[in-house]
């Protein structure tokens, strides 16, 4: 059976990872925009 600690780790990882994904896209967008490399 999956332990409580594993479930907690998995859920927090999923949420934090998803949030970091949004942040990564924003940072990359700003970088591409500054370099004139959006499209």
């Amino acid at each position: 059976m999956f332990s409580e600690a594993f479930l907690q780790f998995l859920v927090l990882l999923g949420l934090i990872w998803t949030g970091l994904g949004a942040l990564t896209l924003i940072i990359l967008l700003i970088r591409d925009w500054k370099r004139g490399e959006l499209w």
Partner: protein
Amino acid sequence: MTLAVSLTTGNAWSIVIGLGVLWVLLGVWWGRKARTSEGFMLAGRNVGISLGAATAMATWVTSNTTMVAPLLAYEKGVWGMLAYASASFGLLLFAPLAFRIRRLLPEGVTAGDFFRMRYGRIGWGVFLVITLVYSITWLVTMAIAGGKLLEALGDIPYAQGMTLILVVCVLYTLFGGLYAVIGTDFIQSLIILIGIVFIGAIVINDVDVPKVHEHLSREQPALLDVLMPAALLAIFNNMLFGFGEVMHNNVWWSRAFAMREKVAPKAFFLSGILWFPIPIAAGFIALAAGPLGVNVTDPSKVGPEVAEHALGLAGLGTFAGVIILIVLFCSMASSIDSLLAATSDLLVRDIYEGLFRQELDPRKFRPVAATSIIVVSLTAWALALSGWNVDQVLFSAGALVASLIWPIIAGLFWKRLNRALVITGIVSGCVVGLIFYFKVQTYTGALVGAAISMMFTLAARWIRPSELETPAA
């Protein structure tokens, strides 16, 4: 049928029309750059990593991700979440293929160009049949999901809601081509990611993870079972379905052609990394159904039902429906627009130019492209209106798309192959995979299709192989 959210029919119409007007205005604005066929179909082949990664990720986040991932978690527990997350491996694996695609087809426009060059007109024809059936079916499932969503959340009649969502996506794709699709995909991907994190955080605030674990181990211990056979089988089937879907579909090939050559592999890899945690975050929302005391009346809507309940507990009753509708609408629109653009590209490039051998001069391009988009959308609309059970067709198509995995990899990386044997393998994989899907177990369709075509493709490397065609220098 409706969820108990505080979203009036008027509000639902206003949100979809408001977002629709925004997408269309942006589509018109970005569409000014789409003066040539390269601009309209491939966004000028100059897309950077931020827009490239976001569009690949957003396209793979469909209503299936936001609705079926919670359903899988609800029915198959922790392994259900992980099984759905494994679909991200398709995007990760496409990264090295994107590098090779750009090298092999520097002037390529569609996935059909690859099949025509490497496997001749028969292989190209087999590919077109598979991909058109699959793409239209996928599009129809999105339109149906959109109609059902508006009916459930805003009490908008199914036919009206489904038509509204399709019309919005058709309009901005018509005006802006791939520029509009990629630009709106970026905004939609941010809304999806932030929305899922926001709802997940609210759920954790209402009921912490130890309580969820305690409830599951007492009431539904199978959902925490480390060795749940059905879920383990689902992982492999989902993974192969994902590989076949991503590798063959022009939705991703057109993006590989649209990105700058060095950007394409990195963007696909990043999109897979960004996509992986979404089914886990969305799936957890469904696991909280029991501890939160949500009476799940329809498991296929468990995600929105729990989200609505949790947002209500957090005092967001008035906005619960608004938030859920916006996140789900974005997840559907980001796939519908991509399918409209990529499938109509196939009609223009492979059917109009390739099959009918019509010359496409710059003056004729926009009317032909617009006609293709309208034909694809009208076909999807008519099928979605008919009430035909397309889910069954889409899931069974796992056998078809999985049969294309090995021929695509081999065609990209090997110089010599027996073409007839590869094509025979694709057809055999489709037929045997479908038989297994319908007669043995649904989870075996993609596995068997991929295995059969793999055997034929490997044999094609050694039994009377001939030089494959490469682009003229």
